[in-house]
């Protein structure tokens, strides 16, 4: 992927991701489905100026939804669980 700014879509803030963060300095992002682990690592390191220890990814299948008479499917997406090196933090996920 040419542009690192296209890799990371948005942070994932849920109960589960908060638990991960507190347990092992792991933060979660929704990422471009075609992004690879090395690309995600590079993007996070460059954009947030932190050191990344490990990246795990999960392809999340979109849910089937029914809205009135219309049935549909939400898009599949890729979640990346990024383990930061000790001492690294990203401001957004911290308490002010």
């Amino acid at each position, binding site marked *: 992927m040419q542009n690192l700014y296209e890799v990371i879509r948005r942070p994932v803030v849920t*109960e589960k991701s*908060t638990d991960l963060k507190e347990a092992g300095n792991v933060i979660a992002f929704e990422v471009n489905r075609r992004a690879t682990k090395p690309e995600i690592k590079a993007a996070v390191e460059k954009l947030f100026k932190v050191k990344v220890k490990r990246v795990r990814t999960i392809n999340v299948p979109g849910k089937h939804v029914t809205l009135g008479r219309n049935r549909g499917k939400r898009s599949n997406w890729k979640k990346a669980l990024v383990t930061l090196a000790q001492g690294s933090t990203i401001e957004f996920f911290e308490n002010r």
Partner: protein
Amino acid sequence: MKATIENLGPWERKIAVEIPADEVSETVERTYRELAKGVRVRGFRKGKVPRTVMTRMYGDQVRNEVIQALINRTYGETLRTHQLEPVSEPVIEPEKLAEGQPWRYTARLEVRPEVKVQKWEKLALAQTEAVVDDAAVKERLERLAGMHAQLVVEEGATRLARGHFAVIDYEGSVEGTPFEGGAGKEVTIEIGSGRFIPGFEDQLEGMAAGEAREVTVTFPEDYGKSELAGKPALFQVTLKEIKKKVVPAIDDEFAKDTGEFENLEALRAKVSEDIQRELDEESRRTLREQAKGQLVAENPVEAPPAMVEREFRSAVESTRQRLSTQGVDPERLGLTPEALEREWRPRAELDVKASLILDQIARDRGFEVTAEDIDAFLEPMAREAKQRVSTLRAAYEERGLLPVLERRIKDEKALDLVLEKATIQKEKSASDREK
């Protein structure tokens, strides 16, 4: 909680309150717990939102709530323990709140100043003891007769003159065209009253009943309708009738006509009694004002500006309301904002001072206001409004005005006592000042 009080003047205090760190933390914690029960955040089940997330989303709100809660809890307590009696809303300056740190705020407020009553007994007062004299009764009777006057048509070849009432039809035009409100039929105007356009009444003088005349006048520059102001106008006037005001003779007949009186003597007695009552009331009021004035002169007190302001405003407001129900514009009576400021404010200040002194006297004597006192105070008002005392009291209670009322009554009681202890020089005076 630690609180220190600083005296900034006889009536101004600065309170500095410090709340220990653990009390702050505890309050913050409780506020978050309360909040957590209700908030919904995407990605979290209700009630499962972690503190870190809530802090990010609701931190400011929680801080403000905590500040409010802490002030509510400690401010009243501080006033009680230091026996401060505020007369104004406090100006509160909170420090920035940080969890795990003690938190401080300061409040500036005006309090009831300490009053040292030095002299309240043996005031030397002068009271005029008014006596009704015949002239006043006569004048009042004449005024009464004037109100019962009737307009009677003058027969014969009378010419219209000053003091007459003319019944006219008229039609006015400006530059040849009639204008709105410029015509009237069977309108009665008093010649010489000056209520019409200047010159109009004068030009009618000398007319006989049935005669028609053309009258030319110029509207004044400051006339109410701007499109007519300063313009010359032509009026076609027909005089229908000449009337004269006939004032009834003051005799037994008149007494019977005015109401339930047997003869003139009974009416005269009633009038005399009325005047006497008014004068007595007036003299009572002046005496009380005089006593208040002396109390203020003899006992130096400082009036907190907030109290003066409140007194001033309520006086202005009640007058304004009374006038507006009568349909009078206060400005026309010379009650411009500047004049009020100049004349009523010192008066409000005097009232506040007098009230502070009287309140202190009442406290020193341990006066209490009982339910009977309140009822007795409301009784005359109730009678005037044709309501029951209990209804009136309920109305006061509902609006939370009972404490105000109680203070008034207390002041009155204290003033009664002051008057009791004063030496009052009685002066006789004729009622001729009554106008």
